[in-house]
């Protein structure tokens, strides 16, 4: 048995658990949602900004694909429709940006679908926008900093892939007395933000975000599966260490 084979077993197990729990939670009770202070902070900042008619901004990442943080691009796109609730759609007081053309195009499509599900996107005078401040990470950083300044954004949420530059966004919001929230999957960003922001989502906690927005429980099977997988992986690692110690591996 190779490590690769063990990996395939994990993938298979994940798929089976995911499907199983999806059926289970469809018919039965709820999986207890972990409380994350940062998410509550984000939701209240978002609500306050909307109430005051201020601008919101959602950064969905500097790039779509990342090996070290797999799925983070997809994850940020999956958050977008949940972030776009009715109030935001109607007010249009939000802008979505990324540093990757692919993300921008897909985000735009998602936004249009969200409007399309309810009423004509074209009829809306002030819809939520999806923009590409610039095509490379560094230029995108400069572009986004400008946007934050000119539009007086009062709530910035970063998800997906961002690097060291996220600390610049954080400080820009700090200067504007705005709320900054990060659910960035990138370790570099998390380390850079840790000294200046209290309620960061770190590690796999970032995957809790969609449920917090949607208020639905559709991600609960994923959480359950993830928790089980984590235990399985810990068990495998401990077992591997023990086997290595006794010379069987």
């Amino acid at each position, binding site marked *: 048995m190779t490590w690769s084979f063990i990996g395939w077993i994990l993938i298979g197990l994940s798929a089976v658990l995911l499907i199983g729990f999806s059926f289970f939670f469809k018919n039965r009770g709820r999986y207890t949602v972990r409380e994350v202070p940062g998410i509550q902070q984000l939701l*209240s900042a978002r609500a306050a900004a909307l109430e005051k008619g201020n601008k919101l901004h959602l950064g969905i990442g500097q790039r779509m*694909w990342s090996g*070290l943080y797999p799925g983070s691009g997809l994850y940020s796109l999956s958050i977008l429709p949940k972030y776009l609730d009715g109030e935001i759609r109607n007010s249009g007081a939000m802008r979505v940006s990324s540093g990757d053309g692919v993300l921008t195009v897909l985000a735009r499509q998602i936004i249009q679908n969200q409007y399309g599900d309810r009423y004509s996107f074209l009829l809306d005078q002030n819809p939520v926008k999806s923009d590409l401040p610039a095509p490379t990470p560094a230029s995108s950083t400069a572009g986004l900093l400008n946007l934050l300044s000119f539009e007086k954004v009062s709530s910035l949420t970063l998800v997906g892939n961002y690097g060291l530059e996220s600390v610049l966004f954080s400080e820009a919001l700090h200067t504007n007395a705005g709320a900054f929230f990060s659910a960035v999957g990138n370790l570099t960003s998390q380390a850079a933000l840790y000294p*200046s922001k209290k309620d960061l989502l770190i590690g796999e906690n970032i995957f809790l975000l969609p449920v917090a927005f949607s208020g639905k429980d559709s991600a609960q099977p994923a959480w359950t599966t993830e928790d089980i997988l984590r235990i399985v992986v810990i068990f495998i690692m401990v077992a591997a260490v023990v086997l290595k110690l006794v010379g069987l591996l």
Partner: protein
Amino acid sequence: MPVLICPVCGAENPISGEKCLKCDATLDGVTPLDAPVEGLSGDESLGSPTKDEQDLPGLLQSLKDEGDIGEVEESLQNGLASNDDLSDIFAEKEASDEEVVPDWLERIRQRAKEEPDAIGDVTQKISAALETIADDKDENKHDDFQSWIENIRKPGSAHSEDQPANELKKENLPSRLSDEDWLMRIRKAEGKLPEGPDPTEQKGNSLLQWLIALEEGRETPSKLGDETSAADEEGDEFSSPITSGDYQVVNEQTQKIATPFKDVLDIDRLMVDISDEEQEQVNLFETVVTQENQAGQQHRPLRKIKHWIWRLVISLILISGLTASLLVWDNADISGAFLSPQNAAFLSWSEARQPGGSLLFIVDFQPGYFSEIMQISKPILGMMLEKDMEISLLSTTPSGELLFENLLAESTGEELAFTDLGYLPMSSLAAYGIANHVENELLQTPESPIVLPAEGYDGILLLSDQAEDVQIWVEQLTALMPETQVLLLLTSQAGPLSLPYWESGQVDGMISGVVEAAAFESAVSGQTVSPVGMRAYQLGSGLMVLMLLLGLTLKNRPDKDDIGEGAQ
């Protein structure tokens, strides 16, 4: 009719009684009170009659004309506005029922028996009320509530001149309002009584008194936005609910208002069944409102200036320090930097290359890291070019080709030819794609197909500034091209997280950061090399250490802005 209210159970007892008829508690020292009329106290049940009700029916009018009824009618006309007057009337009426029945009343009763509708509405209501009193008298259901209503009326009542009950002074209040109050004791025993001073002892702090005063115009509702009252600070449960500018305080007091009614009303019936989602929305709203109020109290401009000054000072220190180190002290001693195993492996691999071999360079770094990458890759590029290796380039950044050209020019001092495999916008797919194309020995480009080395590359050298890019390339390439050697030239920030790939044997050599690069170059050249900007790098590291240590001395109490709550 005066009665004695039992201080223990609240039951009414005759004025002559020494012990409570209900609970046998002593009635010594209990002040007599006029018996309240239950069921008639509230305005809702039998309040002041309306104009229509005051119009006596024709039957009553005819009886009046016949005489004898004038007294009662006068009482009704003048006294129905007061419930206490009514109670007197009923008391008299009760007494008169037992004694002599006047003729006029006898006639009414007789006619009422014959004609059910002969009596008017008012009389019907009075009869119904009398029946109710008779039914409830023994049960004492509303003693507490009635006494409480009486207490409301005490100060400044409009009927105080006529009503004995309204003449009650503080010292004449029923004992329920004293420390021995039975209700208070029950509350204390059940733990429902709030801590702090007895609310009934605080003059003017009673919610009910406040409500009465408000109704009479002696007090006006405080404007939202006023400072929190002293009573709030003292935790006074019964203080005015709208005296604070803090919505949260209002909210708390709104909940507390229910407390006085708790023993009277069935509070369970007032509970609202809400879902978790609704509860979350309530919590969210509460947080938003609280923060909104808190945000308004902050002195932002001052803080903004403070932050700006800090930033300016730090920037000046850093810029002047780095400039000085670059211009004056740029002769760092790095003799302490030793060649680590991954560097040594890189060196061995480089020396083992045969002239004329083929190498694939992958440029996967942002232009901002150019100078660092140049210092790291310079000795390697020099060695490879000396051996006349065939070089190909694949880039995942738009300006990758230009950057690599510059790298070659800076390293060798001349422009060298290389095969450009093009720009691929997505590194994960790029790795996957190049592996497949290498296998097929052909790469289709818009201009013309590029023939790839038939036996693959002697090595793939990745120039990267991000550990995540390293992971993509290493994992994809080692899975898809296991025979090909992969070597890493990385910035110092990408190094630590990439080290496990060296330790697991997935890469054949690695250099990260200018310190390792200097050690490598020193090993290649046989003499200690001091890289450009090394002293500045050390100074920057030292400043960071200093700031972290300085931060330990600051107060451990973040502002709202610091923790990102100043959104609003």
